[in-house]
């Protein structure tokens, strides 16, 4: 890792000290609220109304974490959120990969119209579609199932994922695909063996977008899954508050427990998948 192989786009900042400084800025910008929540989760409630405010907990206590697990089935919330987000991601990527390939590679007469239509979908805020959607889910007998959330979540992420993938697929030289087809690959085989791997940063980006959209969603999760056994994390966390009380320390502890798995996932994925594929594929 010498500065010669460094990305030249930003090479003028490649000194080690500068890298550390830039890394520090990035981390503070991204992590500060999460760190604040972490500190809060270690504080007792009286410390929150102290003036002037304290940054670091006086006496770190794990009590809030114990309460977070004791008061509500936090692991169940996590499990549900994880499953819903995972299923939504897989489904969104499948649907949008197929659609994006058709839009990027095939000669379609109404290509722009279809693309516009897919984007137009996302211009409707889900908030306004709540009641008709509830009726659709009831008609399909999907209320109180994971599917009641997965289906709308696919649609939530479909436009952005499709557009990202179209843009990436268009950047893959047709020659590579044709070469694979000469080697005996079918068209779909070429899609999954050549185009998708070469678009790894795009697929990864689309996957993250889909996962996080599903992970964050609150309103539909509240409305379509009233069964306590199916509650997702954003809905579950609201259960720690009372009609009036908002116990920040316990809610912070629950939020931290909710953030950690996503963080771990991001780290694993980006290290293994992205760096491996990108360094092999596109540069070549």
């Amino acid at each position, binding site marked *: 890792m010498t500065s010669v192989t460094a990305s030249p786009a930003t090479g003028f900042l490649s000194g080690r000290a500068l890298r550390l400084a830039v890394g520090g800025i990035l981390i503070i910008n991204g992590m500060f609220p999460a760190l604040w929540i972490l500190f809060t989760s270690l504080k007792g409630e009286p410390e929150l109304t102290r003036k002037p405010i304290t940054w670091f907990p006086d006496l770190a206590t794990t009590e809030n974490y114990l309460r977070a697990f004791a008061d509500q089935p936090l692991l169940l919330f996590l499990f549900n959120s994880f499953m819903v987000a995972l299923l939504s991601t897989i489904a969104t990527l499948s649907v949008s990969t197929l659609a994006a390939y058709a839009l990027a590679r095939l000669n379609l007469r109404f290509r722009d119209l279809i693309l516009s239509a897919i984007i137009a979908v996302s211009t409707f805020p889900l908030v306004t579609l709540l009641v008709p959607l509830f009726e659709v889910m009831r008609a399909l007998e999907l209320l109180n199932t994971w599917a009641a959330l997965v289906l709308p979540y696919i649609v939530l992420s479909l436009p952005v994922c499709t557009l990202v993938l179209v843009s990436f697929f268009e950047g893959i030289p047709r020659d590579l695909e044709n070469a694979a087809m000469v080697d005996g690959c*079918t068209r779909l085989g070429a899609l999954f063996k050549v185009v998708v791997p070469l678009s790894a940063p795009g697929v990864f980006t689309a996957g993250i977008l889909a996962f996080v959209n599903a992970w964050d969603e609150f309103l539909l999760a509240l409305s379509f899954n009233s069964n306590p056994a199916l509650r997702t*994390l954003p809905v579950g966390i609201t259960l720690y508050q009372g009609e009036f009380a908002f116990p920040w320390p316990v809610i912070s502890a629950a939020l931290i427990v909710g953030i950690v798995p996503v963080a771990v996932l991001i780290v694993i994925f980006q290290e293994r998948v992205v760096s491996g594929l990108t360094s092999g594929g596109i540069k070549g």
Partner: protein
Amino acid sequence: MTAQPNREGSKSSFTRFLDLSETKLAALLLAPAAILLVLIVVYPVGRLIWTSFFNLSLTSGMPASFAGFENYGLLLKDPIFWQTTKNTLLITVVTVPGALLLGIALALMANLPFERKWPVRLSLLIPWALPLSFAGLIFAWFFHSEYGVVNDVLRRFGLKGIIWFNSEEWAMTAICLTIIWKTSSFMALIILAGLQTIPRSLYEAADVDGAGRVRQFFEITLPLLKPSIIIALIFRTITALQTFDIPYTMTRGGPGSSTATLAMYIHQNTVDFLDLGYGSALAVVMFLLSMAVTMVYLRFIRSTR
């Protein structure tokens, strides 16, 4: 149909795929997306447009009656509609470029050759892992005049704390800063993915030509990033026009309705006031607004292709 599927068999079915005309193959590939869209969006939206032509308020105790364009006429005379539209546009005009600039900066920084990439990537993505509704609450707390960390920092620098939510301008400022923070990671993520596909040979050639780093950024990086940036802009703009959670949790639209957005006003009319006719008309107007913006972008993409 043998117990052991042979490659020949599966291949022949794939070959049949290959034989399909392009249009048929396209139809097949687009079908799953189309079915979902009809089910989850087209049908409910159809209901919404239909409802917007009726007097249908569940609290009135009266049955629905056809109203023609009455709801749309009411809306044009509704000062809160205009106020919330103005707020929505203001938030869009401020936070979209704000998030774009911050996003480009973050992506360029994150693209540096760090020895360990994960802490950087993680800090790009964590703002996202915080559920939106809680991000609003956390930042409302940061901007709290007594217990907030923002005023604490101001005081440490010897400045006077601000009662952010006592003033229309400061409340709007706090909301815009929060939105920029929360959404810049989305921008950064898409731009970073684009950055990684720019071949290094281009920069090497520019080096040979003696082009400086700044010139390389404007002449190579930025033009090649354009597709990524446009995607990010389209979706950021659409979501900015739909801004709901952050003002809802931070200010409830206050003081007065100075920070309320159009999406909040729609939500209020439909979910709280149960005035489905009027709420639907508002939603249709908002849809037209978003469509107009999207069309402008799409036209722009087409013209530059």
